[in-house]
């Protein structure tokens, strides 16, 4: 395997346990909230933090005992981390010069990458004179200049203005697809991970809680963090048979009627996950009469309007997020603190038995 990682790393009292692998041309995203241990994982890969146990293998060769300067990794650090006393060009040439390349050769390679990735940046500009986006472009060039075996991007968009993001995201996508080896993208932004990665490793509180393709994570998030990221309702609990064809799921916070999984014998099932798209939740001012099996009353906790859509968080049992058009919110006169009825059909709930069946 081009990249194979399974290790435990400690920083202060915090332990991070990560395992994943990546093929050539594959982008793996390490996705997690701040404080999940992503930076520690990056530093462990780069050799800046020693491993407590485990290994980092590149092309099946263990590199965990190599000092950082001898690892075949190109890193674009969070915030760029350009050397403030060196020009843009000198920053890009640094990984070549540090490995003993001649000044002219390093300079030529740096000029090539600067023109390709950051055409608007003057070669002699100091990092302080660059915008966040320009700094990130230079950092990207510096990560690539030594033709590393593995490319590591740590929060490449976090220090960049919203206006510069689309351009930089397109550049990242282009760079990632043209880089031949394994690529690791570290981010707290689900959209970034979903759009740029082939596979996602979700890291929470120092542990991998889920790994899979963006599609798998979107359709079957395993934790409330992952569900929140992909914007779905997640129910976790035990399942009991109900009326024919349905089951009753006890989440600890309430009961949800769900379809009974196909081909599964009737009986209590523990540790079931279920997701529900917020757009499948309907809201009503009065108690709805009709086919939906799940009807619950709750107080509106929050209404977040994004463009034409509104996400409404309701304190039902269990709590729900509903998505509707901004117009509907206005028409129904919804406001925070008001009571509202929510309904959804059993068939709209997707089950995820821990065995991976849906």
């Amino acid at each position, binding site marked *: 395997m081009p990249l194979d990682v399974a290790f435990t790393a400690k920083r202060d009292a915090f332990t991070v346990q990560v395992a994943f692998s990546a093929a050539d041309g594959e982008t793996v995203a390490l996705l997690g909230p701040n404080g999940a241990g992503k930076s520690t994982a990056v530093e462990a890969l780069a050799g800046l933090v020693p491993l407590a146990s485990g290994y980092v293998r590149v092309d099946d060769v263990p590199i965990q005992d190599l000092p950082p300067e001898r690892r075949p990794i190109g890193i674009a650090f969070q915030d760029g981390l350009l050397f*403030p006393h060196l020009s843009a060009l000198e920053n890009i040439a640094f990984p070549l010069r540090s490995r003993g390349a001649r000044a002219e050769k390093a300079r030529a390679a740096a000029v090539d990458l600067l023109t390709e990735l950051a055409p608007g940046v003057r070669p002699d500009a100091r990092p302080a004179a660059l915008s966040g986006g320009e700094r990130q472009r230079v950092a990207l060039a510096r990560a690539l200049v030594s033709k590393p075996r593995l490319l590591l991007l740590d929060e490449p968009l976090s220090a960049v203005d919203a206006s510069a993001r689309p351009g930089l995201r397109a550049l990242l996508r282009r760079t990632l697809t043209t880089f031949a080896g394994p690529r690791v993208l570290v981010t707290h932004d689900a959209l970034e991970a979903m759009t740029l990665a082939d596979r996602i490793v979700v890291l929470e509180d120092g542990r991998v809680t889920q790994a899979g393709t963006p599609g798998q994570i979107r359709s079957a998030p395993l934790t409330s963090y992952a569900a929140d990221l992909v914007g779905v309702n997640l129910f976790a609990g035990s399942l009991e048979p109900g009326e024919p064809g349905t089951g009753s799921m006890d989440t600890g916070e309430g009961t949800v009627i769900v379809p009974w999984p196909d081909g599964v014998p009737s009986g209590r099932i523990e540790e079931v996950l279920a997701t529900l798209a917020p757009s499948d939740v309907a809201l009503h001012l009065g108690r709805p009469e009709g086919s939906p099996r799940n009807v619950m009353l709750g107080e509106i906790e929050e209404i977040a309007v994004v463009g034409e859509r509104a996400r409404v968080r309701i304190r039902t049992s269990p709590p729900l997020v509903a998505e509707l058009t901004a117009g509907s919110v206005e028409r129904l006169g919804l406001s925070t603190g008001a009571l509202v009825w929510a309904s959804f059909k059993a068939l709209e709930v997707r089950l995820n038995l821990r065995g991976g069946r849906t």
Partner: protein
Amino acid sequence: MRRQLPAPIAVLAAAGAVFVLLPVLALVIRAPWGSVGTAFTGVGASTALRVSLEVSVVATVISVAVGVPLAWVLARVEFPGRSLLRAIVVLPVVLPPVVGGIGLLAALGRGGVVGRWLYDVFGVQLTFTTAGAVLATTFVSMPLVILATEAGLRGLDVRYERAAAAFGGSPGYVMRRVTFPMIAPQLAAGVVLTWARALGEFGATITFAGNLAGKTQTLPLAVYQAREIDPGGAILLSLFLVGISLIVLVALRGRLAGTR
């Protein structure tokens, strides 16, 4: 509208400023400006100036050569007794220089702990030599470059050095291309302050190395000696030292206060 400056503060601040300014002004007023041309041509003064430059430059070079690595160890290496070592290393800043001179005599004087052995085995005597003046000056001025360098190293974001390592820099390369260039402003301030302090050194030098014209008599010692025989000359030499110190302080004004 600007707020009125409270009267008591204005009066006290003015008193403070006048107190510091007055001696400098008095030097300017009392200086025999007519004999400026001859002040440095007198054998004593020009020799003292030469000794001063030699001693202060060599002492600064030694201070940097030894003090910068020491600062690096104090800033970056954890070992038991580090705080104590830091306090001892910086001690000469607050110690009366004459005490430093006495300590040096006890250590390196002809009968001193190490000096006796140096004399018996190698025939080396440091007291009353230019080398002795250099040692005394180094003892007093080196803490300044140590303090400045250590502050620079502590203020440096370690992530830059880690990044440099991740980009293929060996520890030596990282130090050369990243660590020291990034603390160059603090380092430069430390070097200049060290040199200025070395130029003004008096107490430790006269105690350990004596006051021998052409060998250990630096400008401050010459000023001290001239103050009764040639008061006018003493004033001119003093003004010269004031001028150099002032130039150094003005050049460093931002950095001393920690601003740029």
